[in-house]
């Protein structure tokens, strides 16, 4: 059974009512790594944020359900929802530079969740934090735990965030473009590390990214979005063998090839964009007529 199942999730801007998600459905089984890809503005981050209950204030969910372990989060009172998300989910954020509190040392930022969620005492949590840092290959974990975030490099901070996400053994981790803010050499290491930690802990992963290269390396399955609409939902093997949807094919063709740096970049053709936009408009019409 899927641990996370999103059914017909719609979201829109408050006030203006502009749709952001148009009836998105997807599921993530226990231990599965699902990629969530699309251009900027396709709504891929919004899905992750909706699942974790951290949608921006200007966005509201207008329909559908988010089943976490079989319970619809959207029907729970806020307090229970927070507790349920906290106990089973974690986030690996995009920008390691703003994802750690600059005025607190590293140790409490990791141990807080062990204390809050698992009810451990500080001593035990601290020992576990040290283990976790060693697990993400940080040399001299005891020293790093005493450091402030600004004393550490971006790559180091991203490792800490990864360790911290896995700390309370969540069932699902949402990774929101975790490598976008890093430079290319560090990206590769971080990606490898996420894959390694995921395999070791057996955690389900919702991996938000715009990089199909990343998807091919870490994901089992993927969902392609355009304008808040699911365009394709498939497993990685068949996707890279040949995507079913014209937009997915164009997206795949637009990915730069590192094997052939001389080749010019292929944009997504206008005709494909027109077709997929027509699909989005059709979805809106269906939604209006119930």
């Amino acid at each position, binding site marked *: 059974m899927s641990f996370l199942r999103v059914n017909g999730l719609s979201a829109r801007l408050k006030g203006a009512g502009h749709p952001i998600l148009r009836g998105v459905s997807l599921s993530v089984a226990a231990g599965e790594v699902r990629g969530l890809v699309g251009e900027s503005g396709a709504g891929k981050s919004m899905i992750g944020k909706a699942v*974790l*209950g*951290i949608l921006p*204030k200007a966005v509201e969910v207008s329909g559908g359900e988010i089943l976490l372990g079989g319970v619809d989060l959207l029907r729970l009172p806020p307090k229970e929802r*927070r*507790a349920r*998300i*906290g*106990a089973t*989910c*974690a*986030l690996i*954020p*995009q*920008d390691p530079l*703003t*994802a*750690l*509190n*600059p*005025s*607190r040392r590293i140790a409490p*930022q990791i141990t*807080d*969740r062990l204390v*809050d*969620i698992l009810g451990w005492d500080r001593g035990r949590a601290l020992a576990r934090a040290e283990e976790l840092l060693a697990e993400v290959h940080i040399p001299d974990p005891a020293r790093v735990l005493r450091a*402030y975030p*600004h004393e550490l490099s971006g790559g180091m901070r991203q490792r800490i*965030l990864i360790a*911290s996400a896995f700390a*309370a053994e969540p069932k699902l981790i949402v990774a929101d473009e975790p490598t976008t803010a890093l430079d290319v050499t560090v990206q590769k290491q971080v990606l490898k590390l996420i894959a390694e930690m995921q395999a070791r802990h057996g955690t389900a992963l919702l991996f938000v990214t715009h990089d199909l290269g990343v998807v091919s390396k870490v994901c089992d399955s993927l969902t392609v979005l355009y304008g808040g609409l699911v365009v394709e939902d498939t497993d990685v093997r068949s996707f890279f063998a040949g995507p079913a949807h014209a937009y997915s094919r164009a997206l795949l063709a637009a990915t730069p090839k590192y094997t052939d740096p001389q080749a010019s970049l292929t944009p997504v053709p206008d005709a494909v964009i027109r077709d997929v936009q027509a699909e989005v408009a059709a979805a809106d019409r269906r939604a209006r007529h119930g």
Partner: protein
Amino acid sequence: MADARGMVKRKAGLKLWLSGGWLALVVLAALLAPWIAPQDPLAQDLFLGRMPPAWVSGAEPGYWLGTDSLGRDVLSRILHGARIALTVALVAGGITCLIGAALGLLAGFLRGWVDLAISRLIDIWMAFPPVLFSILLIAVLGPGLSSIVIAIVVIDWTRFARVVRAEAMAQGAMDYVASAQVAGRGRLSTMVTEILPNVLPTIVVLLTLEMGIAVIVEAILSFVNLSISTDDPTWGGMIAEGRTSVHQAWWVLVFPLVTLFLTVLAFSQLGEGLKDRFDPVLR
């Protein structure tokens, strides 16, 4: 980079030492005034009116900074005036900071209707001209130390609220706040453990600035005779008196003025120095 950082640190150190040193002197003066003041600050002696400071010819021994037109010792009055200045700085500054920062933090982090209500209140509040507002307040409350404190708090809380709100809003958008919320932290707990420590350096700077402002406001109100009773020595009251006789006895005006100036400057520099020193991001 390391050089620039070192220089910032050295400069911060100097700022901190000079301003801290002066304020320590003022605090000592305030605490010890009854014992170290060479004369009774209220004692009048018309035969000793407008005596110049000790290093000018014609000075009276024992009156180091001269006397005013009523023969009261300027140095003793400055020392005693430090008590009122510091009381106002600490009490008014502290209360203003507590109220303003709390409202700003709530508005900036909780947003929504709380923000709407507090922001509109700030806008309306700031539309009143502050000096008129304070004079009006004192006129209603009657002169006295507590009226001054209330006037400062009522007028200046917006200074804190505005800045802290903006800062809390900026911090609230950071990913670490999102992470704390995913981990199931409540809103208020997140505000205190995650946001407050990051806003604190700003609050400290504002607080020291506010203390300086409180000293000035007290002086202004003394100057227009709306502070505490005119007999009690206050720096503003002394400046007001000295102004009338500046051509005959400049020292009556200049010494309290310089003291006031240095104290206000020291407060603002102390804030800057503390920020440079203790802000983990700058450090």
